[in-house]
């Protein structure tokens, strides 16, 4: 019950945002062609579609970040207070030393996968690869669910389901990515702070590098786009039935929760969506 009220409180904010954004889009399209095209666009561009594109944008970048984080080598870099004159980066697969003066980069791959590796390294690899695959799959599946792509046009609700499934996939993909990168970062931090605590100086000290940050940013982006796809799509599932731009309905949206319940959760939302799809595919 509390989550429902929370969603209802959030709804006006989402609506104001999307209304302004789609108004901008409307005015752009208005410049292109006056008349019935504009009216059609007004019915075609409710917030739901905009949310799809926002989610798609985030999903693309977070999948890219996760893949980049997995295959780059700066998960650990040497801290400035160590004695080296070169930048030393350790990654999940190899470590590289770049000399600051002549720019020569020397890379060394870790031994074969069956050799002795710290458990942290192997598990982080596994987590990151899982996150890569899930995020890539979620993004590719989301492309099929986008409104501007014609896919299975005979079935009215398939797009909504595809978006939901890819949102859940992206949410799931966020977990291993976040766990992997945060765990690695924590390990580095604990190692360093325990060395400092015991007052031991081994000549080199590590901090976490930009690949680790990329991994964290990618998994947070996955969470964000997954949340947009699952929660906001659910909120907007019947807003897009064409009454969105009439002032009456806007006033209804801003009214307190009691009256909005009837509007948001009325049982015939299926037919509204179906109508909307029939209209959209027609245009």
């Amino acid at each position, binding site marked *: 019950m509390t989550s429902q009220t929370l969603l209802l409180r959030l709804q006006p904010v989402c609506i104001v945002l999307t209304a302004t954004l789609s108004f901008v889009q409307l005015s752009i399209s208005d410049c292109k062609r006056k008349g019935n095209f504009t009216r059609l666009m007004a019915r075609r561009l409710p917030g739901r579609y905009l949310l799809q594109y926002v989610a798609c944008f985030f999903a693309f970048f977070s999948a890219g970040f996760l893949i980049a984080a997995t295959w780059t080598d700066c998960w650990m870099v040497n801290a400035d207070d160590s004695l080296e004159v070169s930048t030393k980066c350790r990654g999940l697969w190899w470590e590289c030393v770049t000399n600051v003066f002549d720019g020569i980069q*020397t890379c060394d791959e870790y031994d074969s996968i069956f050799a002795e590796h710290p458990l942290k390294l192997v598990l982080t690899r596994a987590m990151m690869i899982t996150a890569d695959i899930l995020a890539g799959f979620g993004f590719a599946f989301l492309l099929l669910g986008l409104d501007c792509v014609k896919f299975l046009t005979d079935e009215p609700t398939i797009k909504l389901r595809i978006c939901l499934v890819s949102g859940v996939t992206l949410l799931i993909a966020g977990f291993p990515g976040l766990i992997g990168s945060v765990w690695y970062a924590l390990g580095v931090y604990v190692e360093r702070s325990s060395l400092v605590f015991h007052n031991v100086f081994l000549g080199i000290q590590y901090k976490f590098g930009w690949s680790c940050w990329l991994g964290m940013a990618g998994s947070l982006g996955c969470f964000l786009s997954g949340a947009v796809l699952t929660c906001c799509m659910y909120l907007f599932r019947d807003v897009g039935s064409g009454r969105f731009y009439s002032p009456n309905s806007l006033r209804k949206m801003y009214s307190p929760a009691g009256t909005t319940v009837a509007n948001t959760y009325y049982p015939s939302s299926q037919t509204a969506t179906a109508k909307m799809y029939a209209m*959209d*595919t*027609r*245009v």
Partner: protein
Amino acid sequence: MANAGLQLLGYFLALGGWVGTICSAALPQWKQSSYAGDAIITAVGLYEGLWMSCASQSTGQVQCKLHDSLLSLDVHLQTSRALMVVSILMGFVGVIVSVVGMKCTKVGDENPVVKGRIAMAGGVLFLIAGLCTLTAVSWYATQVTYEFFNPNTPVNARYEFGSALFVGWAAASLTMLGGSFLSCSCPTPTEERRGQQHYRQSQPSTAREPNVKMSSSPIRGEQCL
């Protein structure tokens, strides 16, 4: 007009080719040291790419260094770099443009003729990108061959084709194949006339009754298979 399946096939071929182009431009193995002739086993294998030259030790370490100055490089290296970058940019624009033009998207759906032309433009961009990659890779390969058979080159400093060259050839052919598939969607004159007619007819009816079921419209069925 070409059907949507052919367009999709062409798009994905070209997309794969574009990714291959990026890979081949980034890889450092454009030429690698050759062991042809008397097989001297050395502890160091050298290879060189567009951006860096590397030495791989027998202990498994790889040392790389970026090329020093842009101006002191060979002409063929500079040209290959420029062509590869142009090709990647062209491919990027092509990826975006042909999404707009393909039949499986709804953007600009009310005017199929223009849509077909946009798809063709995307295909032409891919074709140019593929040609750029092909030129760059083949030029570099010619230079490597020339140096290999040059009698003045010492025997143990000879280079042969690296893996990036082969990736580049494959990418160029994929991009060009996909681009030519996409270019097939150029509308013919008769279709243009018919398209304009049905555009004129269908426009008012769409405005009047937007809630008509999709399956009842014959135009719709014809447009998207």
